[in-house]
């Protein structure tokens, strides 16, 4: 297994890397300000909009973007499609970054973060709370991701004992690595149910919410795998992996067909589809979102287009945007608390979110050069 991967032989400190570090520095300053002066000092959060970009982008969309490792684990270890194995490690690395940063942002956004441990005390747990489920699952899955990614580390630093132990329990880790994200990704959708009328009916489906969140999360997982693999191929002039990626494109088609049937079926049954054409902000956002979901479906339906690296990339990007917008719409644009509250993220909120992306990119760039993560060229 170990000789499928190799380190990338490039310098770590490059000009883009330095620029990313600059952004990370700004983020650090904003974090200091947040912890010294409180959430209000750096965010535009208010009594009507308790959750802003930090929760919606960094946690809800961010973990949606981090589903690559999960998607590949399903394909490789559960559906036994071994040919995708070379893509596993890079996807796991990106997932690890996405999840640990998601968990960290949740912590930064927590008003009373020093009491966060209460979530892990059995006598404090409220099992009716979707938030509890998300919190415990994300924590557990982040640990699982560390274990799933550990072989890359152990390969580099030759620790046969540990490797053996890990190998013995790998099937349990893999099982949990598929179940946990499925649970909390669907729960991210369920979180909206309790908010009732404060979420616009276009995004408020009482019983299908978890299913929408789950399907779009899996579709985003496959898209991010296509996206990352294509970027690495182009960026480091490595052989193309299109022959592998087109298979993932086919899975996405099934997911999207399922999604459209359920989503529009639900809107029709509830008689809310008309709102999409109201010409207002929410209706228009719904149409844009739908268009972004439709584009990959149209592209990927044709086997010919599916085999083109460029077309695959367009489909993947469109689907990632669709998934992100679906979440942003449901949690922010469709949010109407009443009482005249408005929210638009502050510059500092946005800078912190950008800084987190910079951490992911810089970390990814550094680690693929430090540990054997990318697929070996001769094999690919």
């Amino acid at each position: 297994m170990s000789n499928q991967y190799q380190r990338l032989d490039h310098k770590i400190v490059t000009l883009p890397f330095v620029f990313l570090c600059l952004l990370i520095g700004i983020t650090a300053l904003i974090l200091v300000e947040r912890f010294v002066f409180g959430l209000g000092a750096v965010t535009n959060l208010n009594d009507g909009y308790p959750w802003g970009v930090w929760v919606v982008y960094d946690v809800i969309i961010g973990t949606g973007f981090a589903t690559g490792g999960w998607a590949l684990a399903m394909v490789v270890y559960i559906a036994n499609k071994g040919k995708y194995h070379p893509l596993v490690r890079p996807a796991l690395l990106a997932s690890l970054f996405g999840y640990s940063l998601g968990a960290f942002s949740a912590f930064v956004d927590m008003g009373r973060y020093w009491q966060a441990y209460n979530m892990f005390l059995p006598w404090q747990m409220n099992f009716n709370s979707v938030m509890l489920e998300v919190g415990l699952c994300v924590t557990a899955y982040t640990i699982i991701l560390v274990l799933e990614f550990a072989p890359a580390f152990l390969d580099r630093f030759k620790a046969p004992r540990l490797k053996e132990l890990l190998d013995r329990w790998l099937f349990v880790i893999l099982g949990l690595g598929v179940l946990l994200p499925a649970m909390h990704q669907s729960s991210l959708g369920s979180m909206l149910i309790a908010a009732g009328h404060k979420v616009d009916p276009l995004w408020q489906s009482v019983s299908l919410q978890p299913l929408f969140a789950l399907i779009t999360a899996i579709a985003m997982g496959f898209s991010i795998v296509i996206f990352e693999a294509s970027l690495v191929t182009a960026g480091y002039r490595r052989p193309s992996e299109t022959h592998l990626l087109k298979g993932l494109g086919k899975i996405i088609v099934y997911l999207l067909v399922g999604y459209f049937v359920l989503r529009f079926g639900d809107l029709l049954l509830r008689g809310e589809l008309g709102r999409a054409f109201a010409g207002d902000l929410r209706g228009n956002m719904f149409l844009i979102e739908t268009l972004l979901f439709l584009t990959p479906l149209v592209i990927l339906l044709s086997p010919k287009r599916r085999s083109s690296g460029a077309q695959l990339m367009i489909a993947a990007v469109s689907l990632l945007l669709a998934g992100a917008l679906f979440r942003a719409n449901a949690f922010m644009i469709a949010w109407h608390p009443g009482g005249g509250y408005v929210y638009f993220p502050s510059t500092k909120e946005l800078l912190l979110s950008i800084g987190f992306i910079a951490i992911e990119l810089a970390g990814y760039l550094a680690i693929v050069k430090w540990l054997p993560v990318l697929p070996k060229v001769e094999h690919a």
Partner: protein
Amino acid sequence: MKRRDFLKAAGTGALIATSAGTASARDNLPVSEEAVGMLYDATLCIGCRACVVKCKEINEMPPELVEGAEQWDMAEELSADTLTIIQAYNGATGGNAARLEDGTFSFSKRQCMHCVDAGCVSVCPVKAMKKDPKTGIVSHDPDACIGCRYCVMACPYNVPKYEYDEAFGQIQKCQLCNQKGVERIDQGQITGCTEVCPTGANIFGTRKELLAEAKRRLQLKKGDTYRYQLSSIDSPHTYETQVKADYQQHIFGEKEGGGTQVLVLAGTPITNLGLPELPERSYAANSETVQHTLYGGMIAPAGILAGLIYLARRNTKGGDHDE
């Protein structure tokens, strides 16, 4: 290819999920026999805001001042420093008081409604929001709270407020004057805002008695004389006066969102008074039903996990991967 195994495992999972679901769908929570609450009758409220002042005093909260203006409390909305508020609404349009034209206006008192099936209690991950099983008072424990503000999201009335301008902020909301260090209800007293209300627009009592009183008032016509209680439903102090307006035939809080322990009567449509239109089924019941359908007793996840582990084991057997 072990496609059949995969389908088998998935099928088992789905089966378990469905059987777990039927067992745990839940209805609205019932109201406790001894639930206490308040009845706010907007036709009696003169907007003196004595309740707002008393509430601030009890909760030791500062007035909200506007720079450059005369220095008195200028609070217009509920906030972390204002747990109850009197607002004026145009009864015809529900619009702001500043835009009154025809003189049909009404005051409205807002504070935590102490929902029978409270959203904030249902969603709080760490049981910081609690509903007393006897009195039904929804209290908040800042020592348990992690500040996630899910309760703010889930409250249909936008009641819980977080102190954004503090490094160690906390959630604030009306706890029916029964919080630690105050405990007016436990000591047999009534809430501060009802105690000081000069017109009896806001009275304290058990929900049962308040509901009965509200139903009696709905029988009245404008101009009838009626003996109104002051401060609390069982108070010896009453006063007789003429009914000021025809009551809307609607007791807000009797059924809304599973019912509330604060009930509201008004002479104009109550949904024009800053209160939302809500279905009778509580959002908490919806949310918990979906959640328990998926995770009831963790049976479904355990079943699926077993299937996943089985497949992962088969597919990784022999250490290395077969290709």
